[in-house]
């Protein structure tokens, strides 16, 4: 199979998206068909590529010197690309219904579809320069989606968003420069590319740049103390919050952190150094801090956003364990959390779309009026808490297995943090479920008589996600094997 297809899946959505405002669609239906067809086509191409696993690289063009924009598919990239490709068509379907009430659809779908290509670009990038380019592009192309409603709040949130993103990328750039100088190649190589002869006694400096670079890329993953942008960005339409701020954008950050840790600096070089201590401390703090804020928050989307902050740091916890098992754990939580959180966000989005209610205390009795949505929400809540038999438990198990394997005090502390966070998760998710299904004896159901389940365009994605959550909960063996095989090449 020709590796040029890698460039096709990246550029096709960008092109298809950019064309949307210029095509004179007869009506809304045609636009929907066009977008869904384009997105589905890319997804199909992506999966065909994943099954064929082309080994060669594809160079799009070269900058000066040996820097180039080039793509190559490897294990880690396959996982992220597969995840994104699976979710995007479903999320697009959901957005068609949801965006009816937001307006400016053409521009929304333009950027939404372009983001797809750019996220795939990050997943398929062969070297740190390519990844960095797409990483910057991702920040820029998602900005219009955050400020979509053009309210004052949205614009302020957009400003915060852009400051954090560009600031983060700048830090990431420092790491990039040092990898180029001190590495043997700019490509991603399992185990790292640092040239120890060149480093000599500059070890601490390299570690320092790693810390800078890790925090820079992890800003997208909302690591403490740079996490406040994510809940603020919750003003965006729900499809954006769900797909971008629970999966694509934030996990691109985690993905970049994996790349620099395992494929550029090298886990062996970093393990046991003070740099690992620093990033581990930040990650553990984020895990607990994120869900404490989620418990305090009463706005539903912001609550889920804080929950995302915490759960993303589960992924980063796996990353900073700096071991193959840690990477496998991180990847499994990256995938499973994506399903769980997008499902939870879509439920909340359905409530907002149907009723306009955004706060937890307004949800009394909704379980009876929107049974499908709240059954899905309950399942995703249980999965997020880590009840065995659902996907969330599997990824937690994999993370803890890696932590036990590492066997350091910090790793044990991380396990404790995961469990504290699980308890807080139970609190912030179950209070919603109890409210929805048990509104209390004096509750007057006539106040919510107009509330009902949304149509199939919203229910279908939710069903698929729920099936995935249950499926991975009951047979995750092959998936864990696959991830461990991918990470074992370190």
């Amino acid at each position: 199979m020709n590796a040029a297809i890698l460039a096709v899946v990246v550029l096709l959505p960008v092109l298809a998206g950019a064309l949307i405002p210029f095509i004179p669609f007869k009506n809304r239906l045609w636009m929907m068909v066009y977008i869904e067809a384009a997105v589905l086509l890319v997804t199909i191409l992506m999966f065909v590529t994943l099954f064929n696993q082309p080994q060669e690289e594809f160079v799009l063009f070269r900058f000066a010197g040996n820097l180039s924009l080039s793509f190559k598919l490897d294990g880690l990239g396959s996982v992220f690309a597969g995840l994104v490709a699976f979710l995007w068509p479903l999320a697009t379907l959901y957005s068609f219904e949801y965006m009816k009430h937001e307006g400016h659809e053409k521009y929304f779908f333009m950027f939404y579809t372009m983001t797809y290509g750019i996220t795939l670009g990050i997943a398929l990038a062969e070297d740190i320069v390519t990844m960095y380019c797409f990483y910057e592009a991702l920040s820029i192309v998602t900005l219009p989606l955050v400020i979509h409603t053009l309210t004052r709040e949205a614009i302020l949130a957009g400003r915060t968003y852009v400051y954090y993103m560009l600031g983060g990328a700048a830090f990431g750039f420092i790491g990039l420069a040092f990898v180029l100088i001190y590495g043997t190649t700019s490509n991603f190589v399992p185990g790292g590319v640092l040239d120890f002869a060149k480093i000599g006694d500059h070890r601490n400096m390299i570690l320092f740049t790693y810390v800078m670079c890790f925090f820079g890329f992890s800003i997208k993953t909302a690591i403490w103390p740079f996490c406040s942008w994510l809940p603020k960005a919750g003003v965006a339409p729900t499809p954006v919050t769900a797909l971008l701020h629970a999966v694509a954008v934030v996990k691109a950050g985690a993905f970049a952190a994996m790349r620099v840790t395992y494929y550029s600096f090298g886990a062996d070089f970093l393990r046991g150094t003070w740099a690992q201590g620093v990033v581990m401390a930040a990650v553990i703090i984020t895990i607990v801090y994120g869900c404490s804020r989620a418990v305090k928050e009463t706005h539903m989307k912001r609550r889920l956003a804080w929950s995302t902050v915490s759960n993303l740091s589960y992924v980063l916890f796996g990353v900073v364990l700096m071991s193959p098992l840690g990477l496998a754990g991180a990847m499994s939580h990256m995938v499973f959390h994506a399903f769980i959180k997008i499902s939870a966000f879509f439920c909340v989005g359905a409530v907002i779309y149907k009723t306009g209610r955004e706060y937890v205390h307004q949800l009394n009795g909704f379980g009876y009026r929107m049974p499908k949505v709240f059954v899905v929400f309950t399942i995703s809540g249980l999965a997020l808490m880590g009840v065995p038999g659902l996907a969330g438990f599997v990824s937690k198990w994999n993370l803890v297995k890696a932590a036990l394997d590492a066997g350091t005090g910090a790793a044990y502390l991380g396990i404790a943090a995961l469990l504290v966070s699980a308890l807080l998760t139970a609190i912030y998710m179950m209070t919603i479920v109890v409210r929805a299904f048990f509104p209390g004896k004096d509750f007057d159901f006539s106040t919510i008589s107009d509330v009902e389940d949304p149509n199939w365009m919203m229910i279908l994605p939710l069903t698929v996600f729920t099936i995935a959550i249950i499926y991975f909960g009951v047979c995750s063996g092959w998936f864990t094997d696959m991830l461990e095989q991918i990470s074992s090449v370190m």
Partner: protein
Amino acid sequence: MNSWILLPVCLPVIVGACLLISLAFDRRKDASGPSEEELKRLHILVFFTLIATTVFTLALVWAGKGSLALFEIVKGIPVYFQIDGAGRLFAAIFCIAWTAVGIYAFTYMPHEGKEKQFFAFYLIVFGVLIALAFSGNLVTMYLFYELMTVTSAPLVLHNGSREAIMASLKYLFYSMCGAYLGLFALFFLYQNCDTLTFTAGGTLNPELAAQNGTILLIAVFAALIGFGAKAGMFPLHAWLPTAHPVAPSPASAVLSGVIAKAGVLAVLRVVYYVAGADFLRGSWVQTAWMTLTLLTVFMGSLLAFREPVFKKRLAYSTVSQVSYILFGLSLLSPTAFEGAMLHTVFHMFIKCTLFLVAGVFIVKCNKTRVDELDGIGKQMPGTLWCFTFASLALIGIPPTSGFISKWYLAQGALEANVGVFGWLGPVILLVSALLTAGYLLPVTMKGFFPGKDYPSVPKDDAPKGMLYPVLFLTAIAVLPGVIPNPLIGFISRIADLVF
């Protein structure tokens, strides 16, 4: 043969789930309650489900062996059921108590309303409990333990008052906190054990255990505290006196009588079937555990003694009595172990009886406080006699059942070679027994002898649907004191295996 294990698990869960689904449709149609006809059908359905499940479970208990592995939850660890001694004992008593209380609920629940919802969750929790008893490895047990917590919370919040909802959330979060402490232990046990499958005597790998001793002890201690939460052990006991009394009386009965024992079962499994008694013997964990249980025994009794609300008093009594069981387990000696198992059986039936009697008082005369119960024996002598017998058994007066279990517990403490606890334990048990007499017997005394000024009241005992289950439970709670040998024989065979 082996896949029959799924039958008593799935049957009540499926029936319960169907009831929930039909409930969702009812709610959409109209707000008016179900008709007589519908209620009757519901009762028949629930009745036959309970009986069928009990029969299947007892058949499995009788068969006495078998195991079944389903899909893998995580790599290498399947959902695994196996029927062993402890599982048989717990499954048998779970289903007898659950069915008896369920039959009582048919008459009680019209008083509370929303019967469909109640019975739906009642059945689901039943299936989950059977699964918990037959769980064959730690992860499976953890799975059903979590499910039990989640599915039993609706029983607590049944009446829908703000108080009940807050109580159920408190219940949920304490239990979750406990479960996660248990999960913490599970991770470390997984690392240091040859297998997580329950094996009498423990599966700890000696080399790894020697290497990771400290963290492993901390982990086991976390499990004791965590699973002890369900059993109302200090320091995670505070939910119990809040949550048990606000539930409808049948639910209080099973929460106190049965679900608290699920916590005991979990502790039992971790200590005797995974970590192994030898690993804990003489460690700081054993000392700390004994201290906590004795503290809980004393504190529970004292608080019960001071409590004026009847059901709340019984809930404090549960706190105290379940820690008798845990104290027996913490001694790590065969005799004390037998005492603990005996007390598990007896306390389950006794506490179900007591709560059901409290339910009768609520339904018949709407009396919830102890000081309102003067002269109740004139009106309902049968009910109060049941209460009296159960109380005597709980205090431990020979020849009732409670005497036997306490005798074994005290003897076990003296034998166990645990230093100061060898005599401190029996002393505290004795003091607590006196307090038990102090908080239970006044109800009987004032109930039968309200004083000469008390106006004569017509005899109006509990309806048959409530009285017969109460009589039945009283009988099986008290009578084993007279013929204890079959039960003791069964339990000592379990004890022989684990030590």
